């Protein structure tokens, strides 16, 4: 089992030292109805500098603990994530850590625009880290397309073609000429190539897109679900497993990963208090505007058809979460704030957030592991939380939680992609794939 942890690196004020500033900042986000696009004159560079250093220190510290990996992501134009260019952070970690895998989930290939340059950046990170890089790719959220002026109507084509080109650049002897639909290179011959051969292992993170799940199964890339609800996640696992069978292999735990929001503290009370903060700092979906989440052509026709018929979803195109903008009175803002935090008990109940002491979180983590059976597991710590509490959480996870999770992993036979190559298990003679997720365990919850 591969165990890592993740944080969005949200821009935030310390709730103990500057509670009023934190509250004002939340108000700005609520008023704007979105993290993306919040006017950047609100960015305090001094705070940004402190936070980026803090986040790197946390990752470096986790190298000494029991983690197998640290996971990074990237977002643009949003206080939700200070990792605007994740490869920069990855480069720092490549040199300042010794043991952990550096897992990038993922580089937004369509928005970067130059796959060959990306291949070079990643090769350098792999070389400096002495072969600890796990690159992954994403299409980029809708808002990312605006922040980089990447044509959303070409998003999936750019994604698939860009990745093919990166892998070619790493594996096909150069120089060669590349003429695709969207990318054209006269001379592909990067001198700097990855240390891991034939290329670093690739994992793909995702939310709900069936298109991406099927594509991953075809490519034999492990799919890491980002804190999605358990029931649809099981369905996606099954979809992957069926698609894998069509490709002639039996999917296993090595094909799946899961990201789990969690907060651990020395007392249950403290953990709950901090876990609750995740509702604002972590729950991305509540604060995104439909016009930026669903740019033109970003979704497939099937996905658009599904969206058009969802009448109660919070972020439907054309249905803003709340209609007004900029002129809400204080009572309205407070009502929205209250509604956000009131979602906490339900998120605990649904295991969308697990909070507690190292001992009390174990049975809950076990439930998730029993249902999804992921070979890759990542903790997700977020929300405006004082640095010392974040650090303590990382420490408790590393020293007290991980050893027990590992035991569960052994007991449940959660083999990871380093132990068994994804796609290497032949299909049984019946050609009927065995499901990886445990539907009975889900029903028993």
């Amino acid at each position, binding site marked *: 089992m591969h165990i890592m942890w993740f944080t969005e690196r949200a821009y935030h004020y310390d709730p103990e030292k500057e509670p009023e500033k934190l509250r004002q900042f939340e108000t700005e986000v609520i008023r704007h109805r979105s993290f993306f696009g919040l006017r950047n004159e609100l960015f305090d560079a001094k705070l940004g500098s402190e936070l980026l250093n803090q986040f790197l220190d946390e990752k470096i510290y986790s190298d000494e603990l029991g983690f197998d990996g640290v996971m990074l992501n990237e977002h643009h134009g949003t206080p939700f994530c200070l990792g605007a260019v994740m490869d920069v952070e990855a480069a720092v970690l490549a040199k300042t850590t010794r043991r952990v895998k550096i897992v990038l989930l993922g580089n937004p290939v369509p928005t970067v625009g130059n796959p060959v340059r990306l291949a070079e950046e990643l090769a350098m990170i792999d070389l400096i880290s002495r072969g600890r890089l796990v690159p992954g790719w994403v299409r980029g959220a809708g808002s990312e397309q605006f922040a980089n002026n990447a044509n959303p109507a070409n998003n999936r084509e750019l994604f698939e073609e860009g990745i093919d080109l990166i892998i070619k650049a790493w594996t096909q002897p150069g120089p060669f000429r590349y003429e695709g639909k969207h990318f054209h290179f006269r001379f592909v011959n990067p001198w700097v190539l990855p240390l891991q051969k034939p290329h670093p292992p690739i994992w793909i993170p995702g939310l709900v897109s069936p298109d991406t799940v099927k594509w991953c199964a075809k490519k034999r890339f492990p799919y890491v679900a980002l804190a999605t609800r358990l029931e649809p996640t099981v369905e996606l696992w099954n979809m992957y497993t069926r698609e894998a069978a069509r490709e002639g292999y039996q999917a296993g735990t090595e094909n799946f990963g899961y990201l789990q929001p969690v907060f651990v503290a020395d007392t249950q009370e403290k953990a709950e208090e901090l876990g609750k903060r995740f509702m604002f700092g972590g729950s991305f979906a509540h604060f995104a505007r439909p016009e930026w989440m669903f740019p033109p052509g970003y979704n497939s026709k099937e996905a*658009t058809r599904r969206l058009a018929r969802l009448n109660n979803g919070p972020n439907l195109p054309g249905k803003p979460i709340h209609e007004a903008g900029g002129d809400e009175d204080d009572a309205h803002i407070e009502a929205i704030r209250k509604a956000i935090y009131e979602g906490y008990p339900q998120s605990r109940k649904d295991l969308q957030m697990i909070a507690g002491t190292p001992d009390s979180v174990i049975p809950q983590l076990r439930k998730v592991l029993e249902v999804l059976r992921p070979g890759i597991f990542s903790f997700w710590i977020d929300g405006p939380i004082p640095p010392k509490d974040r650090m303590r959480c990382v420490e408790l996870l590393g020293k007290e939680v991980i050893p027990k999770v590992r035991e569960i992993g052994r007991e449940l036979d959660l083999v990871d992609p380093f132990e068994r190559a994804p796609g290497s298990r032949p299909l049984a003679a019946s050609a009927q794939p065995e499901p990886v997720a445990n539907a009975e365990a889900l029903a028993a919850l």
Partner: protein
Amino acid sequence: MAEKVSGFAEETVKVGGTSLIVLKGGSGKPLLVLHEELGFPGWLRWNAEMAKTRRLLVPMHPGFGRTERAEWISSVRDLAGFYARYLREQQLSGIDVIGFSFGGWIAAEMAANDPKLFRRMVLVAPTGIRPPSGELRDMFVTTARVYLSATVRNPAATAEFGALFGGEETPEQFEAFEDARAEVARLAWQPYMHNPSLPHLLEGVTGLPTLLIWGREDGVVPLSAGEVYQRALKDSRLIVFDDCGHRPEVEKTSEFVARVNEFLA
């Protein structure tokens, strides 16, 4: 919508590998109608008025949901070439044309390439040229609904506003808007909704009387772009309606129909 109007028929015409859907209504000399960026807004009062003396041919742009997408069309100039082929193969060269917004841009590209395709051309607040002052309203940073309401000066005071695109945003209409937005993104994401070479090519157009119609308060394509069109096209006239936004055909229907009929007579 369109199907409810008597005498309004739909036919499918093969243009290369594409089955082009064309709506036809009215009687008289044919008039090619090139629809806007959100799709075909439906059979409105101006259509009914003009259909009394003209046979309207309204092709549904490829990739906008009705006509299938043509993979090879990747620019408005490609689309203009597609429609030029349609006119030639259907022996419709020399037809009169009226184009709205994005559809006006298509017509302008066709004229720039081959002025003989048309006898007379009416462009209603066409996109296609970057305005020297103001900006083309970006349809991609808002929802279709928000963009739609910016196309008239005052939605509440525009009687026919509620009839545009059938009024309600049903799931089907939502899908249709998304099809249109996606296809326009493929063709005009960057540079946004214009082609820098268009005004230069339009300077070479001769023998094509052109009427440019604009609303003074157009919130989608600023009037300054109309002035560039007017200067580039030798044989053109720009008329401007006061108290009017991007849809003179809906906001000032009677005057609009009168001026267009007078020009096309």
